[in-house]
């Protein structure tokens, strides 16, 4: 079993395999299941993701009314053609938003690695699909590569906002996505690790401060920017840019920052955006009274 990113990259490069292949082989060994079964299960997850993206792009609204409809706005904006950044990146952003809007509406999603951060991996995947024209098999592999990097983060740091803040959720998701984009675009295993490191470095310190305790504000827009971050970092890594701090050390830094983060900024809805006047008044409106004591 690979314990960290450096072992994962070493395994892939010495055996001349992709990261996704190392992950598939490990899964076969650990769970004692056949390649066919494992691929079939991931294929099902891919279908769930695709359905969530499509549903979100058609437009949903959450029960609280706080989120929904932004994926539609962005898709319409892209169609007008007057955008400034880039079509693929905006498409990734809108599809990440779409997934999280469905999640907020208590729809069916696949956690990647969590529900609150479920938009980034499918958002980027379905956006680069249009650009790279992958086969279904390559799309499934994208999820194994994401999973391999998420596996390292989950075991060495955290993927829980309550334990490590949003950096552990959207930060991890964005790093996972960046690495998988690099593999799909033909980059090397080391470049995957560089993309993960560059992404996560730019998510360090991100707190978990959901308004009214709901996985809506700011979660949906953090997924949007997580997707954008992943796309740019993937391009940087593919251009040959490396991270001065190795990926495993970035993951370790993320873990330590999470431990130093005060409880009020770890999914308790007591600090940050949740404690702003507007955050509190939205909370009062949704629940009738402010549930959480004011600071």
């Amino acid at each position, binding site marked *: *079993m690979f*314990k960290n990113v450096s072992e994962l990259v070493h395994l892939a490069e010495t055996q001349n395999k992709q990261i996704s292949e190392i*992950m598939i082989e*490990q*899964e076969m060994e*650990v*769970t*004692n299941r056949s390649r066919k079964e*494992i691929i079939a299960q*991931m294929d*099902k*997850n891919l279908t769930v993701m695709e359905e969530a993206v499509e549903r979100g792009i058609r437009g949903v609204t959450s029960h*609280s009314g706080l989120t929904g409809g932004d994926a539609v706005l962005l898709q319409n904006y892209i169609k007008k053609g007057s955008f400034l950044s880039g079509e693929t990146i905006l498409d990734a952003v809108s599809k990440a938003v779409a997934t999280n809007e*469905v*999640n*907020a*509406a*208590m*729809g*069916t*999603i*696949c*956690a*990647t*690695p*969590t*529900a*609150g951060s*479920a938009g980034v*991996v499918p958002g980027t995947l379905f956006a680069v699909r249009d650009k790279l024209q992958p086969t279904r098999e390559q799309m499934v592999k994208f999820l*194994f590569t*994401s*999973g*391999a990097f*998420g*596996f390292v983060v*989950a*075991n060495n740091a*955290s*993927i*829980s*906002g*309550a*334990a490590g803040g949003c950096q*552990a959720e959207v930060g991890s998701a964005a790093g996972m996505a960046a690495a998988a984009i690099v593999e799909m675009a033909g980059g090397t295993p080391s470049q995957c690790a560089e993309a993960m490191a560059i992404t996560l470095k730019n998510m360090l310190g991100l707190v978990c401060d*959901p308004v009214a*305790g*709901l*996985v*809506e504000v700011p979660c949906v827009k953090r997924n949007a920017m997580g997707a954008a971050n992943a796309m740019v970092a993937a391009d940087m890594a593919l251009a040959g840019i490396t991270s001065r701090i190795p990926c495993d050390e970035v993951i370790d830094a993320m873990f330590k920052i999470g431990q130093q983060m005060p*409880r009020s900024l*770890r*999914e*308790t*809805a*007591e600090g940050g955006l949740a404690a702003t006047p507007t955050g509190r008044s939205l909370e009062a409106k*949704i*629940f009738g009274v402010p*549930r*959480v004591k004011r600071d």
Partner: protein
Amino acid sequence: MKYKSVFDIIGPVMIGPSSSHTAGAARIGRVARSLFGREPKWAKISLYESFAKTYRGHGTDVAIVGGLLDFDTDDKRIIKALEIAKEHNIQYEFIEESAVAEHPNTARIIIGDENGELELVGISIGGGKIEITELNGFHLKLSGHHPAILVVHNDRFGVIASVSNILGSHEINIGHMEVSRKEIGKMALMTIEVDQNINESIIEEISKLPNITQVARVVD
């Protein structure tokens, strides 16, 4: 390593909005239901820290009750779990605890009916993955991701060997095992995670062994 499978990371497929507060919560409820072995008539659910602060927004209450009704994380009936529980005449109560817990997402569930009760503490560690840390006052570590049996027994020599002999004779492999007791020579608990599902006849066989008080099964 806490996470062993890629599907702990890419998965579960679930009803939103939170993997730890919704999917994990549903799994904790479902393990309690499975250990109790039947639908409870009442439930007292204490929530700690992040669970206590944000449960309404995340649907943690709905999800735990959904789990007690035996719903899986992707079962759409979770959304209506509180109403369904009322239809089934299940009395439930939520208590927001202010005490500091070992883990930020902690729930203590006490369920019961006229024939007995069960108390369990579960933590939701991220991405929908859970651990059961306490059962009827015993400390333990149960992931809920593998088939497992829990054996309450008298703390005597040879009891552990006799249980593992029965599993061995049915070609069931033990993946993880833990034994805890409250006092030397008194009540003890074996937590055994196995690779295959254990059928009812094996449970009966174990129940008949000397010094065994209770056997409960957790089906994967």
